[in-house]
């Protein structure tokens, strides 16, 4: 590690110390509703469980968001877009994965277009189990994320920065090329 890098790391650490209080209590979500788990989010957001009291709210674009919710199975086609969205987010950023499909492929373990485990391609901070996870589980997962941010354990984005080559290699292995270019993308 060169001197400059160390200085950068030190500055980052200092900033994190000041900012983690705010970050933990103000989490804006980008909901990447890929699968069936997304149906559990409305309950968690509205009057029954009221996500806003944790300071969480939905956002329109990845630029504004702090956490990306991957709710369910990912086909390779979707994975490309998720990676793109994740890389567009500002740092620090967190990723919450829902359901077994993101863990080991779930019921799609043998499907040709569906990936098996998301953590090969993107760093995951919190898994929420259940097929589909109940709103209680969702809320519990978010509470875990908040605690992790407070304890400075939600370091997925840093891991992604540090092991970028490893992640990139895995992504290329599964996707062929990261950004697709065909007649639909002109």
């Amino acid at each position: 590690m060169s001197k400059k890098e160390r200085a950068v790391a030190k500055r980052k650490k200092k900033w994190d110390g000041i900012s983690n209080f705010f970050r933990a209590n103000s989490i804006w979500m980008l909901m990447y509703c890929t699968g069936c788990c997304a149906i559990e989010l409305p309950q968690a957001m509205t009057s029954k469980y009221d996500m806003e009291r944790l300071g969480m709210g939905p956002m329109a674009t990845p630029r504004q968001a702090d956490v990306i919710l991957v709710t369910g199975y990912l086909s390779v086609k979707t994975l490309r877009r998720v990676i793109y969205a994740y890389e567009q987010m500002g740092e620090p950023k967190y990723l919450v994965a829902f359901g077994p499909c993101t863990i080991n492929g779930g019921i799609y373990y043998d499907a040709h277009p569906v990936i098996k485990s998301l953590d090969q391609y993107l760093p995951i901070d919190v898994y929420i189990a259940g097929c589909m996870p109940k709103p209680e589980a969702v809320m519990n997962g978010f509470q875990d994320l908040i605690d992790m941010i407070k304890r400075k354990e939600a370091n997925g984005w840093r891991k992604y920065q540090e092991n970028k080559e490893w992640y990139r290699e895995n992504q290329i292995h599964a996707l062929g090329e990261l950004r697709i270019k065909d007649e639909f993308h002109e």
Partner: protein
Amino acid sequence: MGISIGVGTIIVGLLISAVLAYVLTKINKTTGAWVTVLAPFLALAAVFLLRDSIGTTYSLFFLEFELTEYGWFFSMIMLLVFACVSFFNVYWMKKMVHPAAYNMLYLLALTGTLGAFMAKDFIGLFIFWEMIVWSSMFIIPFGKSRKASVVYYAFSALGSLAMLYGIFYLYNAFGSFNIQEVLKLAATDTTAALVAFITIGIAGMVKLGVFPFHLWLPRAHGNAPDTFSPILSGGLVKAGGFAVFLIAVVMPSYEAFATQLQFMGVSITSYIFILFGAVSIVVGTLMAIKQDDFKKLIAYSSVANAGYIIIGLAMTDALSVGGAFMHIFAHALASAAAFLAVAAVSHRTGTTKMSELGGLIHRMPLTYLVYLIAIISMAGIPPMAGFISKWMLFQSMIDNGMVFVATAAFFGSIGSFLYVFRPLSAVFLGQLSPKHYKVKKAPVLMMIPMIILSGLTVLFGIFPNIVLRIVSRIQTSVGMEGLQFDGTKIIGSNGSLDPTLIVVIFGIGFMIALVIFLLHPKSRKVELMDTYTASEFIYTPELLHYSHSFYAPFERLYKNAPDTSKWYKAILKKVSEIGGFVSYAFFSSKPRIVVFWIVIAMVALLWGGSV
């Protein structure tokens, strides 16, 4: 005894340099163009030095000139615009069809404006007025369209004839051509004043491009050579303001029409003029919002701004006339700068269509800043000069309680945000089209005049009193109440304005924002195409650029509004029908018609003989 510089010397000098420019351009194009740069600068310096000798009369052959306060003010604006724009001539020589003629006419137009502003009598005014019309009429077809010139000439002829009628009427009534004298006499005679007001007023309105005479303006401005559009918009159009100023303030109209029905604090005749101004604000704004051509958009905005000028002049109170003068000055600077920015863009990219451009800020940042300052001034946002004039005009509108006129003015003022933002967004911001990747910065010589104009706009936005004190002197010289000042403050009738303080406070706000910005983590620089697309991969910048029919939802609401050009087309059809009949009846070579006329003539003769 040294060479004394007088108005006559300047005019003769400009005429000689016009001929010189023609001859030199025939030999070498660039040298000829430099003559058009030098001559206005020398004239500018000369007129500036004449500041102390205001009130002196000069004579040149049979023409009499008098340097008045307002003549000097108008001449300075005009020379400033001509001097700044002339730098662009150097670059346009290769693109012109007749560079020599262009250079000569360019200087002749300048001579015409100076002569008109300084003429002592109406004959001089008319001669030089025609000189402006003719020289600019021949320049306009050097651009894109010949037809534009015809439209321009048709309207100008109307204005000139109206003016000529007015001049002869006044001569008939008072036996003099002297402007000051005749106008003062006319103020005592309501009928003469009314005739003068309407005829010379029409001439001024045509030149200003006020509704319903606004049609020539976008055509001429849009199609004139890129170097001449700033002259038209920033300079020549303002000559119309001069004509309106003569009859509204020098006369002055509030004395002449004191016996008329008073409405909203002004006479009914003035109010009708004000209403035309209000309509042209609305029409100009709505049409400007619709345009796709960068130049036409600014041309229509000139129509709207002409509305403010005529409203200010026709209201004839201290604030409004001061506002109108400030507006003439601010708009001359701003629209010249905006047109020069267009010219720079057109020079580098070869188009002025907004839907074909985009993202030029990454290639021409200084041109962008020039345009930004120009539009801030045009939209009347502080801290630019345009804000001061709008504030003054609004003050007097509110004082007079002119609800409908103010509605139009407010609409035009807010609407101007729409149309000035569109080129900013579509031409300079947004995605850079691949065909413009290799566009270079504007050349240094083009930057000089643009920066001068922008600098003046900012300077007079912060310290408007420099100009307003001159305006105040003009007002006292024509027997009006002058503007009031208190340090950097301008005292209005229901509040005062301190532009310098506004700039200081804005500076403080900006510094606080800058500190907040710098205290926080540095941002990561990303490509322009790395933008939110709902995670879809898009590779064509043109498709990611929002510039085509920008205000579509708003345009839809008035797309069926009546179009003035249709009325004129109907009139044109009728005129050509009558003309056709006349030529059929009187100039036909068909034997039976000739025989018919011979018979009629003989009958008439015989009849006459028998009586």
